[in-house]
């Protein structure tokens, strides 16, 4: 089990991820369409046409608007399990 001790740090960061919800500030350059309308007066054609070209399954990690913390935790679990599964599959192919 020794080699799994590193999981402690993963659990620590898992527990504190709701801290990421404390800010309403958007990352610079990750704006939605309304930002351009507001700041430029128009939405550049390409951005308007292609911004929503792909619909992700659980947009923005907060698919339950009433319970952002819960959806953040569920998103984290889904992400972490997907990552472990993919590495596990690659390892199985290798064997």
């Amino acid at each position, binding site marked *: 089990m020794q080699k799994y001790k590193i999981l402690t740090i993963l659990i620590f960061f898992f527990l504190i991820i709701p801290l990421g919800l404390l800010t309403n500030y958007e*990352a610079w350059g990750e704006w939605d369409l309304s930002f351009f309308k507001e700041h430029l007066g128009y939405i550049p054609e390409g*951005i308007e046409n292609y911004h929503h*070209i792909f619909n*992700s*399954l659980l947009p923005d990690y907060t698919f339950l608007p009433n319970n952002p913390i819960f959806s953040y935790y569920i998103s984290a679990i889904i*992400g972490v399990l997907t*990552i472990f599964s993919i590495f*596990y599959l690659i390892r199985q192919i290798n064997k």
Partner: protein
Amino acid sequence: MHIPDGYLSPATYITSYIVSAPLLFYGFKKLKEKLNDKTFPLISTLTALSFLIMMINIPIPGGTSGHAIGTAVLSILFDPWIAYISISLVLFIQAVIFGDGGITAWAVNSLAMGFVASWTAFIMYRFLKNLNKTLALFVAGWSSLVASSFVIALILGIQPYIAHSPDGKPLFFPFDLKITIPAVVGTHALYFGVIEGVFTILTIKFREKINAIKVVKNAKV
């Protein structure tokens, strides 16, 4: 720093996919070689850790926010190719499942936060580790994020020059390099890079501590 869909002109993202293809192919081959029962726990845990820290958005003065990426840790503990592929996988999951970063922009995001960040961390660490290990870890983390933000700023900032309508209106990302460089590189050098540096030190020192305990335990037996 995750560029969304619609911000990049087709000329940009098609080129980025063409450039990425051989790098991803080679990197994946390296990952397959390195991934075994012994390395699996650490590689997958550190990759999952990268996914989690990217969820922790940290606000900074000026009304924006950002986060660390965790590429440097993987690059230093394994090698830059492993880090590049692992982070690209994280970015892929973020884009497909959570809409964080675009599908068309995935290759640019992966080149910046994966490829460039991992090689910068690797080279800086190699260069400085004999001088002072803690300093080397910090600089590796800091510089990896700053270099990666530079690539993002550059790719975003050239869009108004390469894609505009006949009357000069930008078709894709509208702000040029004079704006993107200070906004993206400046904030990463001052804030998020520092967080990446500290995260790199803490994670690698923590891992060394676990290993030290293991050595002592084995010695007792």
